[in-house]
């Protein structure tokens, strides 16, 4: 106990000295040019909890302003401590986080447990999904917070550690109200709860108090770009090599000319292959990191004969996935290899060699597919078109998103390949919102959507299509894929929902592994959806504007180009990426 007090004293001392020290530091020269469709005032504001605030507005650059507790390194499946110093599970009951004691806000005050507790108090009112795993959030001391676990899982750690901490000078009043409301035992969605929710959403702070090395005000937000400015008090203020971050406004089409013109250091947008080509011609380096998901054939399991696993297996063998991947996203998509419902990289990480070898890779093989279908009583008619065992033609409508060029291409190509094999498929483009409704309502036969998930956890990967698009995760009356989650497999009764849950339950990877292997094997055999390709990023990196990016085989690129845990965030904040010759 005395040790802690001493530590606190030291921290406070440091806290009072640090700003003085910090402010002597000068902003590094050099500008980082990003691009993102941020929100413009009045839709854009500084409330990090509400849509339009930094968290939803700045994309990956948000974490350059408000830091998370830790950064996930995908290649090592481990975390690097940022605002947290260390953490541990207390059995299966709780997860404890120790914050760094030398981390400061941009106003010079220390980042403490109160900030973290306040952040979660407000998050609870806003129904953050963290509370699927977390029960109570308690302060142990000024720098230690204890999360009791409602649902012990490694995912809880993943979610908590990657949460950004917000400043209680700004949000303190709201946090206090949230704590009081929760303590009063008010029911979720009670009137008081909703009123506080509204108050939180409508709160418009006048400033950002940053924990990251960059800060901005609404005056910095312009309509063709916005700027973030270096501030001296962050734990990364010393290491980061850029003094200004200039974010160009815009979605893909608006950003493309800027990228080709050499005005953007790095962009995360999904560019079409033609632009990919133009970027390469312009001498830009293209980073292809994993998304961990991609296009899949969605199947309505209520419709015969698609409900037969043999038909789905045959489909997997007659669609050439190399062709499909290229047409979907050019070089930024890979054909799926293992067909296990998880990213190929993750399957190699989780399954033993023998288990991987046992998976059916469904290599392109129309002859085998033919034999498979003939074996279950299907026949070909005089024109070579397939008839099912009832003598009905194997025909269906294949709907796809009219506006999504990549998935549209995947679908059109699948239609062609299936027809070449002798099915009778018609493609139809539908507005994407309408198609979402159709799929959820079970109002489709074949369609295209994603398999996998951006999360690296097997549970999320397997759940990708099965929770968001199957009856188990949808609202009353919606059937979605209607893939039965309870069935007999290899003579064993399987509860697939429970099995997938088991892949993420508990805190021991070794315990989870057999469940993962089994779930993957089942997915591989039954193919609830048929994975076609796995998407890769095609982020341009302009090496005239930024030097020091590691070689293509560096493990950091395994992190992907998403908003959280983006590789560029790591490289920039750690000072590995430095201003290039044109950025000074």
């Amino acid at each position, binding site marked *: 106990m005395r040790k802690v007090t001493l530590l606190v004293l030291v921290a406070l001392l440091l806290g009072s000295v640090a700003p003085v020290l910090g402010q002597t530091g000068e902003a590094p020269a050099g500008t980082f040019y990003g691009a993102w469709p941020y929100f413009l005032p009045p839709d854009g504001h500084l409330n990090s909890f509400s849509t339009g605030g930094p968290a939803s507005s700045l994309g990956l650059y948000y974490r350059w302003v408000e830091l998370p507790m830790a950064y996930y390194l995908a290649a090592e499946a481990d975390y690097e401590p940022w605002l947290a110093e260390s953490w541990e599970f207390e059995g299966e009951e709780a997860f404890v986080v120790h914050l760094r004691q030398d981390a400061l806000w941009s106003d010079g005050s220390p980042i403490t447990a109160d900030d973290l507790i306040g952040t979660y108090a407000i998050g609870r009112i*806003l129904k953050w999904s963290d509370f699927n795993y977390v029960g109570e959030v308690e302060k142990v001391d000024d720098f230690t917070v204890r999360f009791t676990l409602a649902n012990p899982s490694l995912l809880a750690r993943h979610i908590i550690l990657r949460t950004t901490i917000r400043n209680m000078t700004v949000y303190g009043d709201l946090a206090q109200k949230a704590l009081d409301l929760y303590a009063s035992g008010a029911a979720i969605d009670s009137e008081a709860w909703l009123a506080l929710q509204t108050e939180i959403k409508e709160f418009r702070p006048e400033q950002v108090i940053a924990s990251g090395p960059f800060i901005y005000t609404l005056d910095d937000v312009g309509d063709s770009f*916005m700027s973030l400015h270096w501030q001296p008090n962050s734990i990364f203020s010393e290491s980061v090599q850029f003094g200004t971050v200039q974010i160009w406004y815009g979605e893909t089409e608006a950003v493309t000319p800027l990228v080709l013109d050499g005005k953007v250091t790095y962009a995360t947008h999904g560019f079409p292959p033609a632009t990919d080509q133009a970027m390469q011609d312009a001498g830009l380096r293209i980073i292809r990191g994993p998304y961990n998901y991609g296009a899949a054939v969605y199947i309505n399991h209520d419709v015969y004969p698609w409900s037969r696993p043999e038909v789905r297996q045959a489909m997997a063998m007659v669609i050439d996935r190399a062709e499909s991947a290229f047409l979907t996203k050019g070089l930024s998509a890979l054909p799926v290899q293992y067909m296990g419902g998880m990213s190929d990289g993750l399957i190699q990480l989780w399954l033993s060699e023998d288990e991987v070898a046992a998976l059916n890779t469904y290599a392109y093989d129309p002859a085998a597919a033919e034999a498979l279908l003939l074996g279950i009583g299907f026949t070909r008619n005089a024109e070579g078109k397939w008839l099912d065992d009832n003598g009905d033609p194997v025909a269906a409508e294949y709907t796809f998103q009219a506006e999504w060029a990549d998935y549209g291409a995947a679908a059109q190509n699948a239609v062609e390949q299936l027809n070449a094999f002798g099915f009778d498929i018609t493609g139809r483009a539908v507005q994407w919102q309408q198609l979402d409704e159709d799929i959820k309502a079970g109002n489709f036969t074949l369609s295209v959507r994603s398999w996998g998930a951006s999360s690296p956890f097997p549970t999320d990967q397997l759940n990708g299509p099965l929770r968001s698009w199957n009856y188990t995760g949808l609202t009353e009356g919606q059937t979605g894929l209607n893939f039965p989650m309870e069935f007999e497999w290899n003579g064993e009764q399987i509860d697939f929902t429970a099995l997938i849950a088991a892949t993420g339950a508990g805190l021991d990877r070794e315990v989870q592994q057999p469940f993962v292997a089994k779930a993957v094997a089942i997915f591989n055999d039954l193919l609830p959806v048929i994975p076609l390709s796995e998407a890769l990023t095609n982020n341009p990196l302009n090496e005239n504007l930024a030097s020091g990016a590691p070689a293509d085989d560096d493990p950091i690129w395994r992190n992907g180009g*998403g908003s959280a845990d983006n590789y560029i965030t790591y490289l920039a904040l750690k000072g590995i990426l430095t201003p290039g010759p044109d950025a000074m």
Partner: protein
Amino acid sequence: MEARPDIQVVDSQSAALWKTLRRALTGFTARTLLQGAITIWAVMTFTFILIRQMPSNPVQIEAERIVREEQLSYDEAYSRAAALFDFNPDQPIIEQYVEYLGRLVRLDLGQSITSAGTPVLDQILQYLPWTVFSVGLGLLISFTIGIFVGMAMAYWRGGILDNVVTAIASILFGIPNYIIALLIILILGVQLGLIDIANALGRVDPTLEPGFTPEYILSILQHALLPVFTYVAATVGGWILTMKSSTIATLGEEYVTAAHARGLSQWRVLTAYVGRNAMLPLVTRLAISIGFVVGGSVIIEDIYRYRGLGKFLVTAIVARDYTSMQGVFLVIAISVVFANILADVLYGALDPRVRVGGKER
């Protein structure tokens, strides 16, 4: 254009003009206003019901985004999205309507659904000036060019000017504005590299401090160049051709011949007699066009990334932000109704026939 205006009416002086303007203004009184108000209400109600019939709703759209990005089940994502938005999908539409109407009476357009806490009025005020500026400037320029060129062509009809301009005007009139915009970017920007697209898009250079400084105004004009040029190119042909035919028709009128006969100078005849009368149908059309300035041009603003009201409206439609959509539709309806009233007043003030007989319309 069948009735023959009296010569003496055309000779009117400004005092008489004022008198008629006053009469025209008193003519449109409570009745016109009431009609306008009813039209606005009808449009408001119609769009209110219509936009809520579109598939999906703001919470569902956001929930799907969350599902895509954060691996939650749809139910979880839905409740989170609902917590973020000021919208209750289960509220009966009639209740929403009464609520909205109640607020509207107090001149409150409500808050944006997808950006909780942001008043719709603020959003509109953010986007409206830019659209009014760019589309309005385009309209003004093309109208002015149209009037003068059209008149000149009619006067020297059959000449080189007439033939060349007629050809150009017909071509411009024939091509949709978004095609012109695409061609500008494709050919001038990408293939020939004459325009620096990267710097030409958007509304203004954000590094400049907003204010009435020469740099800031210059930057605004510079960024408005492409959209305004496109608006002018797409509409000027129509104005020129209309003005030309209108002038030709006027030139044939008896009072013009009479004026010539009275020995009035060529210039005076052209400005006082021909010009004013030929412009008459165009002025009313201009007034009506002004009403639609507010709506902007959805596709042009999309192509040039010019964030005006049209672009904002499409964004709101895609996100199903009912209140924002509703606000924009309302503002457009109001401006169109007022522009129509303006057109009537102008017509009454300028058209001698209406002045004398007052039985038309």
